[in-house]
């Protein structure tokens, strides 16, 4: 038996001018979801059930960019994606291009449990959801007035910042060359919607699990897939640890960040926090992303090189923390 531990995040790359009441609101949601996870762990739920439960709650709350409150595509629709991984047997499930499933993370779980595959996307994922009776709602359910306004601002900003149809020096580097620290993915930080959600848990049996869910990037092209559903990029769990990342998807994919935390522990023998620090320093461009992690020994770890990450932690011995900066 080890002590359980849980960490949640609500995205990395926070606008330094985010109004105080919005910061408080985000912290309250994180604290509520954290407490829900703590209760589940006290009731001896397995890690994989706890991460699903907590991410469902984060998806259902419109504050963060997942489920209800998702960032919008260039066409003004919500296209959500999520993945879940159980360190036990490295089982995993992922979905992309989900438009009507109320809780994408639970659909990812269904893919893991009920399909011969690991990853279903778009129409096939929607069909699979209906086949298994997952709760569905209209796409409008996910769209908030706030995000409609953000999309408008993003479109205005984007026409100036970059346009993928016109090959420029910028497009040569996968859009990663925007160096201004007050921008993320080419968007001004004030309209960038960082609030991908994730949860990592180690239960008292030492089983690790990770889950990540997102609406993706504001004003993204239809069909764009980010890091959140990609095993090894946004989400990873194995016998050693569980990791969930957030930030510029393209940087996280290139760095295979979530897997690399585990790989550094496995192949280099580093401890959890040292592995997280190593990956943030060596595998990630400055200002791009952050991550939360737990180890099978009941440790929690966290790292980010953005200005802020919405996050919360708790361990069985009573340590609780919720923070942004």
């Amino acid at each position, binding site marked *: 038996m080890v002590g359980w531990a849980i960490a949640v995040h609500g995205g990395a790359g926070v606008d330094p001018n985010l109004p105080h009441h919005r910061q408080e609101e985000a912290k309250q949601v994180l604290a509520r979801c954290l407490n829900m996870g703590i209760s589940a762990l006290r009731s001896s739920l397995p890690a994989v059930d706890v991460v699903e439960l907590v991410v469902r709650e984060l998806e259902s709350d419109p504050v963060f960019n997942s489920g209800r409150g998702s960032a919008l595509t260039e066409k003004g629709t919500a296209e959500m994606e999520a993945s879940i991984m159980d360190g036990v047997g*490295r*089982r*995993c499930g*992922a979905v*992309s*291009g989900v438009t009507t499933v109320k809780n994408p993370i639970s659909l990812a779980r269904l893919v893991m449990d009920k*399909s*011969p*595959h*690991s*990853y*279903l*996307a*778009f*129409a*096939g*994922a929607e*069909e*699979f959801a209906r086949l298994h009776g997952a709760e569905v709602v209209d796409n409008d359910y996910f769209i908030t007035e706030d995000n409609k306004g953000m999309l408008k601002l993003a479109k205005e900003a984007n026409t100036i910042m*970059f346009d*993928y*149809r016109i*090959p420029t020096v*910028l*497009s*040569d*580097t*996968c*859009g990663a060359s925007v160096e201004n620290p007050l921008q993320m*993915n*080419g968007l001004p930080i004030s309209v960038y919607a960082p609030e991908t959600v994730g949860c990592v848990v180690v239960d008292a049996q030492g089983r690790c699990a990770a889950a990540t869910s997102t609406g993706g990037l504001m004003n*993204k*092209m*239809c*069909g*764009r*897939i*980010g890091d959140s559903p*990609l*095993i*090894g*990029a946004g989400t*990873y769990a194995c016998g050693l640890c569980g990791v969930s990342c957030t930030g510029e*998807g*393209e940087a996280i*994919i*290139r760095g*295979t960040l979530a*897997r*690399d935390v585990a*790989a*550094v522990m496995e*192949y*280099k023998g580093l401890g959890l926090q040292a592995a997280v620090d190593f990956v943030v320093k060596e595998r990630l461009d400055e200002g791009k992303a952050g991550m939360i992690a737990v180890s099978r020994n009941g440790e929690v770890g966290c790292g980010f090189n953005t200005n802020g990450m919405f996050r919360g932690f708790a361990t069985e011995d009573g340590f609780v923390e919720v923070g942004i900066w």
Partner: protein
Amino acid sequence: MCPRVHSVRELENNPHFNAGKGSVLTSSGTVEMEACIMDGNMKCGAVSGLTTVVNAISLARLVMERTPHIYLAFDGAEAFAREHGVETLDASHFITPENIQRLKQAKEANRVQIDYTQPMQKKEEDTATADGDSQTGTVGCVAVDSDGNLAAATSTGGLVNKMVGRIGDTPLIGAGTYANSLCAVSATGKGEAIIRGTVARDVAALMEFKGLSLEEAAACVVKERVPKGNVGLVAVSATGEVTMPFNTTGMFRACATEDGYSEIAIWPLTKD
């Protein structure tokens, strides 16, 4: 055009392999192709769910070079293809009579199978090994040029009788395809096992974090990270080494190096 894109395009256009024309069919009898490309400078592009694009690998390259994103899929990827005027053909072009037959057999045997597996009448518990009894049809290419620049590319039609919308390992950076300044890797086999094993990234990670050679790293991943009968890979290092290990019964493979060495094989080579 760079040589690896050219090689993979040729393989896609050859109906004998499970990519482009000749791609295997989904449970609905349709083709859904996917591909991925990555170079040693960590630039990468990927596509999934293509139904009309003649060369998936070239679309992956366009995603890499002409979008702020890495990965586009399904309708969005098709729309992007049209916007850039890449060659498209009616979806029926990609469907071959052999694959209609293969799907029929797979449906009768009620299983999802790798590429070219011939459905054999085996007992239920043999399914795992039966999956391994396949000659892999996903195509991939890795290359290192004389300046040590590396690249990897992989393209596939996926699994016979796969669910519509299924994404395998091929388009996933770090699973089916990976390249960095040390090595380039393209994997093939049972996608779900390769995703879980983060196969392509792990070859590079073992070199980077544990100091293994290319051959040791690739052998370790094939042996330790993926159950027997599920994976094969081709890999090259910046110093010009080549390795092509697999834990299936065979793997279609070929390699050539500047010093004149070349090898084309399907089955394991007998070593002393």
